[in-house]
């Protein structure tokens, strides 16, 4: 295990952007009609949100999300200390997306920019890096933006294994840190682990000069069920599991999520799912599901466990208490079709 503790940070807002365009798996032409209901029942995914091909870039979505975040929090761009981007669908690999965002908002030269190449575990890794950058700077306080998410649909054209699973979506999380206020902030406990032997479970390859993602459903299931519960239990050993009222798992599919939830000793927690309405939105699935739940429900406590797992095979989990003043929203981004 690889346990980290960071204290002094608070999540101020979570803004999610999803495409307005809705696809229905019961009408997905790539799937035989006779198999569609079974697919929805077992994956848990009825509707998906996707952008039309080449209609928008990941960077443009991040820009929209950051604008909304800065406006909501009344934060001036000059007050941002760091930008961390987690995506596997940048429009180009050079330069880093965080540098493009730096330019778009004319952030200070002192604003630290960092990209992370991770998928379904990426939100937790991004949160760790964002808090860590703020904690380690000499001033001991600052504001940062964690931008994560993907336009996965552009990697899975005509792939009937992946198309019914994945949706597009991004999320912007605003974090504030003040080392002088540590006593008033509850700690974040992280466990960040990797099983490189599982790198073939989800990978990309080039076909006719076009990058496509390949998903081996059985390998993803086997790795998820064999290792993720153990990974989460290691983190639970550092906290009081009975205090956790909400567990947000990466929204992989119903088979995997049910199998993991069944193996976790967290008796008082709810395990909300957004698979039915949003599908698997890769690294944005955790913040989307968290915000969807908070917008409709009041959890018994705001002591949460978030766990992401997938591409790599990478696993990241965090336990923390969500500040009660957090702003959150899910915005539908207009699409042409």
């Amino acid at each position, binding site marked *: 295990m690889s346990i980290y503790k960071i204290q002094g940070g608070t999540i101020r807002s979570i803004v999610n952007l999803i495409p307005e365009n809705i696809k229905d798996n019961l009408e997905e032409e790539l799937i035989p009609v006779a198999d569609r209901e079974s*697919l929805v029942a077992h994956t848990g995914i009825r509707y998906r949100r996707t952008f039309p091909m080449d209609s928008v870039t990941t960077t443009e979505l991040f820009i929209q999300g950051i604008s909304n975040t800065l406006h909501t929090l009344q934060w001036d761009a000059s007050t941002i200390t760091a930008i961390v981007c987690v995506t596997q669908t940048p429009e180009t690999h050079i330069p880093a997306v965080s540098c493009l965002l730096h330019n778009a908002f004319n952030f200070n030269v002192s604003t630290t920019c960092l990209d992370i190449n991770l998928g379904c575990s990426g939100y937790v890794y991004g949160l760790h890096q964002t808090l860590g950058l703020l904690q380690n700077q000499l001033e001991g306080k600052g504001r940062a933006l964690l931008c994560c998410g993907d336009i996965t649909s552009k990697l899975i054209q005509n792939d009937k294994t992946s198309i019914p699973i994945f949706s597009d979506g991004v999320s912007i999380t605003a974090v504030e840190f003040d080392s002088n206020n540590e006593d008033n902030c509850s700690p974040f406990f992280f466990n960040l682990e990797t099983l490189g032997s599982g790198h073939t479970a989800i990978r990309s390859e080039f076909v006719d000069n076009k990058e496509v993602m390949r998903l081996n*459903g*059985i390998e993803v299931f*086997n790795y998820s069920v064999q290792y993720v519960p153990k990974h989460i239990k290691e983190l639970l050993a550092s906290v009081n599991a009975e205090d956790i009222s909400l567990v947000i798992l990466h929204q992989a599919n119903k088979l995997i999520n049910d199998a993991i939830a069944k193996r976790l000793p967290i008796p008082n927690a709810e395990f909300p799912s957004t698979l039915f309405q949003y599908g698997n939105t890769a690294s944005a699935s955790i913040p989307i599901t968290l915000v969807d739940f908070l917008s409709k429900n009041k959890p018994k406590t705001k002591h949460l466990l978030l766990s992401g797992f997938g591409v790599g095979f990478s696993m990241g989990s965090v336990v923390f208490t969500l500040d009660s003043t957090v702003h959150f929203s899910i915005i539908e981004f207009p699409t042409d079709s």
Partner: protein
Amino acid sequence: MTEQAFLSIIADELMLDSTKIELDTPYRTLPTWTSLNSLLVVSRLHEETGSMITAADLAKFNTLAELYSLISPK
């Protein structure tokens, strides 16, 4: 797990009549053997026995008997 229980699980997950499948049946020839249904078989067998059948196993083997040998005690 008995052979009969194993075949019953296979039939259940593949939505087939259990009397129509036998241990020497090549699973890839079954009409409902799809990527999703093969995942359901792997998931159910793991649930029932704790044994993991991998994608490499499915690619390597041919008959249900070979899958049964992976999950039955040696």
